[in-house]
């Protein structure tokens, strides 16, 4: 059959399906306009359709294609339907114990979220009784950072009396969704953590333990954090275990006796051992969540559930500073104490954690507001240059320069959130055959131009591009600065055959590198400079055009700079050049200012 013919069959088939079954044949006959092939084809397909109900549908069972789900359709609860006094509007997703819908309360004429409990919970009278008792307690929890439980309803779903929860309707995204885009800035992490700790503190004082604190249960809204599913974890069904990779999976009910409740990567040792849990159990999960906010990496991760359990029971996570060198030491200690294996060695009360977080935040604010001269005892460029190799020789992964622009005009902007810059250049590793790099390095040159910004210098400890990508990604930088040639693979540079293509290779790698970073961190901007590659504005423009063509999401986020003044002056040691560079970096960061306040989603 021709493509045209098939299109007609397609259209006629569906048009016929919209008519009553008895009229279809006549309709097809009339609409096929004497084309017998079309008529026969459509009629035969209509006949097949009558019998094809359910055909091939079974293959689709068991899917947990998380994140692709756009519809939800448990029987009887459907958008447009009603549940008691509630008009179901649309599905919001599947939560811990059942599906969640946006609904309208027809009595109070307000919008709410409704969670319909899964039949296995609803069907067992004892479970239901306990659930209802606890729901009553939770509904008394009134706190700005706990999702309010309004009501407990009852309706028949699939013939079973099914309780449902009526909750505050929240607008925002879960912390899990936010973490999918990488680590959070330190101050935002602290702010979120403080709110969680306060909410936990209030709940614990009422004798309610969350039991399943995890990023998916933490909602980020325009009015701050909201904790979901308080104290309800134990009704999630027999067992909720989790894969090592994020999505919750309900384990085979028969294989486990319903002792373990929680989400594996965030579960405390005592939960895994099925020992008694209390508020300190939540503080362990809290520590794991805070760790993940700061680093973008799970505190405990492994390839299998067994290995994950072992990790939680026996291993200490990698120190925070290893992932995120900017972490204040006190914050690292706070997290470590949350993650102590023995509850007796943890923080004992969430309120203490909240206080400590406030103090850490104040110390950071003080440090930003009152920069001390001790960080940079001598502002002469010679001594700053001298620091770099020493620090690197000492084996530091990065060098942190807490220093400020001498005229102080950068201070007001940095008092809230200090923009983080990652400098990709690395002393001694820059290979640019066209650059005279005899004196020092690019990084040395830039240290003056970048004085006054918070800069993390990347030491290339490996030639793997993905390693570098991963490292830079974890810094969650506002700006990545790189010389066009800085990403060369040192081993390849030794290969004569490739020597002449070095520059093309560098361009290619940098393009991939930025393309990738730009995709995983939507706010990061990039600045590429070159002493002589961007010889004319046309070349510079073409380079940007080529990169954007390949990675459209970098549009507006990729900046370039050619060092002016000719070859002999093409060094950032020239104060005028350094000043131009500094101004450009500032301009880029100011461009970003507008988006900084938007870290939390708005309604």
């Amino acid at each position, binding site marked *: *059959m021709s493509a045209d013919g*098939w299109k007609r069959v*397609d259209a006629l*088939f*569906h048009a016929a*399906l919209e008519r009553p079954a008895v009229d279809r044949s006549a309709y097809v006959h009339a609409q096929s306009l004497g084309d017998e092939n079309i008529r026969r084809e459509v009629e*035969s*397909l*209509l*006949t*097949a*359709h009558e*019998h*094809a109900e359910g*055909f*091939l*549908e*079974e*293959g*689709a*069972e*068991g*899917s*947990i*294609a*998380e*994140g*692709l*789900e*756009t*519809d939800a359709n448990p029987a009887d609860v459907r958008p447009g339907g009603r549940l008691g006094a509630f008009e179901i509007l649309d599905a919001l997703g599947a939560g811990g114990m059942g599906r969640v819908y946006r609904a309208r309360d027809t009595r109070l004429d307000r919008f709410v979220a409704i969670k319909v409990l899964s039949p296995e919970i609803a069907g067992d009278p004892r479970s239901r009784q306990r659930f209802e008792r606890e729901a009553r307690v939770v509904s008394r929890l009134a706190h700005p950072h706990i999702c309010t439980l309004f009501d407990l309803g009852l309706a028949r779903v699939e013939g079973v009396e099914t309780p449902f929860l009526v909750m505050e309707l929240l607008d925002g995204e879960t912390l899990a969704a936010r*973490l*999918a885009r*990488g680590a959070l800035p330190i101050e935002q992490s602290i702010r979120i953590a403080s709110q969680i700790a306060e909410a936990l503190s209030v709940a614990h004082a009422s004798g309610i333990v969350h039991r399943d604190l995890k990023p998916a249960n933490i909602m980020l809204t325009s009015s701050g954090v909201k904790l979901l599913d308080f104290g309800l974890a134990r009704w999630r069904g027999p067992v909720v275990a989790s*894969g*090592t*990779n*994020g*999505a919750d999976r309900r384990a085979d009910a028969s294989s486990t006796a319903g002792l373990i409740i929680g989400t594996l990567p965030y579960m405390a040792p005592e939960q895994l051992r099925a020992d008694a849990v209390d508020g300190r159990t939540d503080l362990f999960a809290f520590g794991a969540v805070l760790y993940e906010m700061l680093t*973008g990496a799970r505190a405990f991760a492994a*390839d299998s559930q067994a290995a994950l359990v072992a990790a939680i029971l026996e291993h200490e996570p990698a120190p925070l500073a290893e992932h995120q060198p900017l972490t204040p030491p006190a914050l690292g200690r706070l997290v470590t104490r949350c993650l102590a294996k023995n509850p007796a060695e943890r923080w004992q009360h969430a309120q203490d954690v909240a206080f400590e977080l406030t103090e850490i935040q104040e110390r950071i604010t003080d440090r930003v507001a009152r920069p001390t001269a001790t960080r940079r005892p001598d502002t002469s460029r010679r001594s700053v240059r001298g620091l770099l190799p020493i620090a690197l020789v000492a084996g530091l992964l990065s060098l942190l320069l807490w220093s400020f622009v001498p005229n102080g005009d950068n201070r007001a902007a940095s008092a809230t959130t200090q923009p983080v810059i990652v400098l990709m250049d690395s002393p001694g590793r820059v290979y640019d055959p066209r650059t005279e790099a005899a004196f020092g390095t690019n990084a040395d040159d830039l240290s003056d131009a970048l004085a006054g910004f918070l800069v993390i210098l990347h030491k290339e400890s490996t030639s793997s591009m*993905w390693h570098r990508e991963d490292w830079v990604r974890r810094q969650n930088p506002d700006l990545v600065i790189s010389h066009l040639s800085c990403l060369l693979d040192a081993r390849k540079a030794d290969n004569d055959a490739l020597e002449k293509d070095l520059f093309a290779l560098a361009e290619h790698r940098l393009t*991939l590198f930025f*393309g*990738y970073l730009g*995709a*995983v961190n939507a706010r990061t901007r990039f600045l590429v400079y070159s002493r002589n590659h961007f010889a004319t504005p046309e070349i510079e423009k073409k380079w940007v055009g080529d990169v954007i063509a*390949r*990675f459209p*999401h970098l549009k507006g986020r990729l900046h370039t700079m050619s060092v002016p003044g000719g070859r002999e002056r093409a060094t950032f040691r020239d104060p005028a050049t350094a000043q131009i560079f500094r101004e450009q970096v500032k301009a880029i960061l100011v461009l970003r200012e507008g988006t900084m306040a938007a870290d939390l989603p708005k309604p």
Partner: protein
Amino acid sequence: MSKALDVTALLVAWNNGDEDARDLLMEAVYDELRRRARGFLRRERPDHSLAPTALVNETYLKLVDQRRVQWQSRAHFFAIAGHAMRRILVDHARARRAVKRDAGTRVSWREDLPVRGSHDLDVLALDAALDKLAALDARKGHLVELRFFAGLTIGQAAAVLGLAKATANRDWVLARAWLFRELRGDTL
């Protein structure tokens, strides 16, 4: 770890326009799926039945660092995995058929593979019919692959194909009828 990183990186690269990544991805996903399926196919685990779609999902969880991929990359993964799963089942059915040819036994999923939820469906016939359908209407062929072999719902498959859900639903109804006629026409 390194494998998960590779697949994730490939997904992102493909999503960013690197077409070469697609072939590499296909191979990586195919290998992992086949490795996982092998135990079932050899009846090494007689107490378990093979749910191809569950396998696809397990593989996804194993291979892809979900925190690093965007929605489009997940969609791409399932598109590829559906196709890989189809290849694996067809290859296996062909091998079995070669063995059983003399006896003239029909190779169906039910008797040959302990496949859950796919009663008496001849995988080779389905494969051939799908090829025919795809020649007639590539989009519908793709949709069936996503639905049946990757286990996506209509809504998910619509998302992968970039279709409105209503359109995907119409496609599905017609494709299903067409395949039913092709495979079960003798029962009508």
